[in-house]
């Protein structure tokens, strides 16, 4: 902390004196100071007995402060908490409901094993209290107790009692009861229970639908969540639920709106009537758009979810593209999401305003945003055939600005456009080649080389241009080397007379002086192909590639369904299943602790073991972080090669590869899995090399030799190192 604390003993000594003062005000003031110290993480646990003395008071505020202190230190001073139990139990009988509720709320938070047994009786009483405020507090207290000692909840029949409370006359009590049951359900599942502790039945659904319209906004979210867990018996019931939930779209709270949308998306699956589905979808659009007038953080959550919804129902926001135009002062994370959605909404009819917007964004200052805007132009071109030419013109204008990163990104994007519309925009090639000297990023270089190789026949000085890269071959990065290799071979197959020397030279350099096994292997393949059967070489290298398309979804259909059921939870924001970032598969810190104490008697050994485990876990967490970063920074774009991260390990590997131009460029064998077609990419890093559709693929001898992509690993490795260094 910034202030240098006076000698600890002195201050605590002083506080202790004040806590025992005969003056009421002085005592209260001392408690406040104790709490202040607690907040800045100074150790005031030594004052426990002195603070405890101040618990019995008529002053509610003072009582709350003492309770706050107790909650903090009860765990470390369980013997002393016993002294407080009497007061707590007495308070649960207080005539004032606020005091009763406060006592039961705090007792649940103390979490000291020793007092748990004293909790059950008062809790039993409070669950049946006349006052709804006490009941709703007690309901949550059951969940707290379950978290601490599940057996007690079951033995005392609290679960049955909670189930009965769903029929409570007070909506707030119903909401908290549902919340408590869901919480217990999640905890039970996490600890391996097979039986469903909270079965949502038809009867419960009807009660929930009644409470829905009357309870507080947070309560509505709880109830809607419970509704989403219910499986309707028939179409009629699904319709009924949807009809009752739709009015929630008009609620001022964004979480109510989004959770209601989730319920509708889930129960819509059970509806047969086409027209009702249409109506529901139509009613969904305005509230979704309105979510954009929220604060940026909420907007971002909404945008991520809209992105998912659009993957399932591309027709939801058909005429609303303009509301997604970026505002100059939007935070970057909002802008990036908007870009993605704009491309999704792009059609032949609205492409003109979209393009002029994208062009505008491509001239802003933030490099990342500019690049994404240019990517979006490319995606638009690939998506809408009619607009491709306009997109190319915009790209040409942007190249004209000669801003280095703009030009490079535009070149990369042009490559994709050539893939989609082969031999259409050849007129652009001279302009691209004119910018050859300005390229310094591997991806841009590789893209241009690919273009030159592809159109070698029509570029008079192709051998000269490629010669430049062959001369500096060993200095280039591997993706550029691979691409140069392929391009030169393409050139040779089309114009053998002028490039004999060049191909010889590049094959020589690649096989002898190159330290990447990938590059060497590819060079050997070409060499053998060319020397044994030039006809086969032609068929393989110059094969017609299948055109690319924009994938409609960035996640697999099954995952999409799952994620739609998780709106607006973190999973739907990250577009990743919860298991990838919630420690269910892993061992939580708490269970670790329990395990630790069981295993070793020796305290020291326990300590040591825990430290090791903690360190190990941290390392694991950090690894995990590594796969979150690329996803935060560059949320799954459309044509950006996004991949389905099914396991953290695969995610790691793939996170490394997604920024790797190799994916886009490995086109030699006319493989089907190419850049922009990022339908669930195989978790195998060699996927990009697949021999796919090529009829002549002489695969067997070659495949096993290919090693996993080299750039991916160092990258993941170094990220890990950096992060570990932090701790």
């Amino acid at each position: 902390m910034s202030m240098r604390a006076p000698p600890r003993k002195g201050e605590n000594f002083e506080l202790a004196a004040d806590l025992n003062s005969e003056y009421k005000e002085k005592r209260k003031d001392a408690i406040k100071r104790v709490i202040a110290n607690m907040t800045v993480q100074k150790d005031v646990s030594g004052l426990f007995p002195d603070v405890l003395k101040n618990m019995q008071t008529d002053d509610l505020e003072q009582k709350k402060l003492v309770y706050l202190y107790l909650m903090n230190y009860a765990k470390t001073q369980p013997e002393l908490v016993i002294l407080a139990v009497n007061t707590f139990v007495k308070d649960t009988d207080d005539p004032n409901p606020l005091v009763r509720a406060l006592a039961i709320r705090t007792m649940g938070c103390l979490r000291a094993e020793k007092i748990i047994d004293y909790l059950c009786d008062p809790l039993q009483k409070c669950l049946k209290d006349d006052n709804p405020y006490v009941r709703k507090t007690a309901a949550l207290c059951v969940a707290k107790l379950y978290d601490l000692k599940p057996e007690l909840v079951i033995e005392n029949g609290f679960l049955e009692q909670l189930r009965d409370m769903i029929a409570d006359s007070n909506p707030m009590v119903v909401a908290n009861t549902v919340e408590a049951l869901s919480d217990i359900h999640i905890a039970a599942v996490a600890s391996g229970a097979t039986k469903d502790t909270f079965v949502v039945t038809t009867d419960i659904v009807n009660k929930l639908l009644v409470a829905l319209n009357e309870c507080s906004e947070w309560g509505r979210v709880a109830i809607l969540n419970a509704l989403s867990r219910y499986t309707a018996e028939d179409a009629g019931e699904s319709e009924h639920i949807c009809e009752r939930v739709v009015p929630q779209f008009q609620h001022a709270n964004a979480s109510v709106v989004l959770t209601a949308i989730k319920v509708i998306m889930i129960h819509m699956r059970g509806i047969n009537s086409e027209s009702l589905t249409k109506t529901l979808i139509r009613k969904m659009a305005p509230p979704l758009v309105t979510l954009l007038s929220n604060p940026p953080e909420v907007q971002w959550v909404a945008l991520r979810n809209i992105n998912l919804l659009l993957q399932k129902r591309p027709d939801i926001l058909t005429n609303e593209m303009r509301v997604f135009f970026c505002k100059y002062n939007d935070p970057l994370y909002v802008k990036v999401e908007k870009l993605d959605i704009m491309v999704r909404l792009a059609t032949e009819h609205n492409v003109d305003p979209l393009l002029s917007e994208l062009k505008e964004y491509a001239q802003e200052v933030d490099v990342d945003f500019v690049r994404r805007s240019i990517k979006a132009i490319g995606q638009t071109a690939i998506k809408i055939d009619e607009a491709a030419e306009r997109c190319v013109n915009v790209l040409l204008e942007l190249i004209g600005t000669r801003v280095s990163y703009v030009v490079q990104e535009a070149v990369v994007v042009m490559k994709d456009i050539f893939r989609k519309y082969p031999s259409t925009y050849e007129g652009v090639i001279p302009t691209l080649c004119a910018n050859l000297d300005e390229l310094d990023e591997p991806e841009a270089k590789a893209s241009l080389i690919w273009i030159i190789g592809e159109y070698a026949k029509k570029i008079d000085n192709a051998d000269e241009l490629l010669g430049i890269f062959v001369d500096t071959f060993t200095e280039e990065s591997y993706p550029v080397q691979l691409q140069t290799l392929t391009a030169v071979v393409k050139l040779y197959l089309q114009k053998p007379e002028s490039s004999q020397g060049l191909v010889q030279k590049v094959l020589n350099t690649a096989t002898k002086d190159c330290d990447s096994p990938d590059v060497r292997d590819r060079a050997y393949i070409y060499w053998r192909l060319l020397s044994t059967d030039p006809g086969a070489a032609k068929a393989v290298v110059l094969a017609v590639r299948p055109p690319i398309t924009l994938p409609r979804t960035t996640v697999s259909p099954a995952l999409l369904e799952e994620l739609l059921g998780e709106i607006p939870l973190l999973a739907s924001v990250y577009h990743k299943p919860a298991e990838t970032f919630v420690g269910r598969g892993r061992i939580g810190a708490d269970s670790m602790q329990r395990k630790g104490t069981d295993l070793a008697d020796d305290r020291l050994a326990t300590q040591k073991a825990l430290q090791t485990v903690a360190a190990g876990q941290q390392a694991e967490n950090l690894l995990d972080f590594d796969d979150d970063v690329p996803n935060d920074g560059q949320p799954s774009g459309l044509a950006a090669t996004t991949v389905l991260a099914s396991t953290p390990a695969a995610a790691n590997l793939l996170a490394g590869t997604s920024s790797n131009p190799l994916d886009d460029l490995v086109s030699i064998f006319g493989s089907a899995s190419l850049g922009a077609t990022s339908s669930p990419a195989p978790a195998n890093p060699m996927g990009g090399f697949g021999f796919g559709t090529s009829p002549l693929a002489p695969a067997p001898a070659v495949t096993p030799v290919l090693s996993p992509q080299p750039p991916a690993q160092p990258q993941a490795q170094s990220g890990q190192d950096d992060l570990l260094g932090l701790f």
Partner: protein
Amino acid sequence: MISAFFIFNQKGEVLISRLYRTDLKRSIADVFRIQVVSNSDVRSPIITLGSTSFFHVRINNLYIVAVTKCNANAALVFEFCYRFISIAKSYFGKVDEEAVKNNFVLIYELIDEIIDFGYPQNSETDTLKTYITTESIVSANIAAEESSKITTQATGSTNWRRGDVKYKKNEAFVDVVETVNLSMSAKGTVLRADVDGHILMRAYLSGTPECKFGLNDKLVIDKNERGGGDAVELDDCRFHQCVRLDEFDSTRTISFVPPDGEFELMRYRSTSNVKLPLRVIPTVNEIGTSAVSYAITVKTNFNNKLSATNVVVRIPTPLNTTNVDCKVPIGKAKYVPAENVVVWKIPRIQGGQEVTFQGHASLTSTTNRQVWARPPIDVDFQVLMFTSSGLIVRFLKVFEKSNYHSVKWVRYLTKASGSYQIRPYENRRST
């Protein structure tokens, strides 16, 4: 759900820390400080490290942070953070480091009341104020009966209102406040124009009044009357929780029992036929690399009985501007080097008026040319008794058992702040 709630200051010091669940340790605060506060490049409001997710919202150099270890409801967590901010505002006026430090006891009391075991509870300011006050309550002093009333209200189906409100004079004030969002190209093409409307109500009504509220909503008027020429088309409405949503859904009537005092009754959005109160016509010429000349005309586009007040036009200038000569017919224009803008303040422009700013910016020649994004011109203003959407309050009916007479007042205001933008360049970086 929410496992912990923190407030940090700008230096990353913990001002408030409250753990709601045991799956976290207090030291998790250090992780946030390292990963977010001391990280200059935070590109997402949610950071997930391992299985711990940090949600943060910034306000006046404070970080309001909620931490969770589960697959939490992201929208709910952010809504909650903002709700906390609005509660804090209404309790101690502003939310900054000083206010938090001075009121930390109260804040602890509040956050314990509004979250229990990580689940948000009652967060209606009006109700909270009845039992969490800045003066300490001595429980002996308030009769148990009174507390019962409070708790019933806090959990009741109209948890936003006490039953025993009494006023000598029953009044209701309705403020229709519209914020216009505009993005216009240099040619004058509207790229995007929409209205965010808020209807604020201050209700000083006795008993438990039942209110009905009527607007010139196109959907209602089309249904009931012929030729509702001045009806507005509302894209979407959102209501305070007191409004009965099911009734609105079936018949589009807005009926409710209002909270006592001030509250936001509804928000709406309109995108069709947006009337733009101010028209800005920019002419910007870059003269070589040494100067830029500006002629910015502002035209009012409404009845001459009305006027736009507090007009502030912010005209961006290149980063290497040394000085700007400004000539204005009214108001004051001044070059603010720190922000690279000329700020032109006009206290009042009458309807139908037209004023032009003439300026000449001199630039230095710089060695390293920083990229200038050429931001849009931004205009702030207020126009009283004018709505951009054309929305009109048609009636507000109050029904109460005692059948008292009530007086209603309606006010309209259209404003813009930070979102009325005109792009000054046809094509940026055309040179």
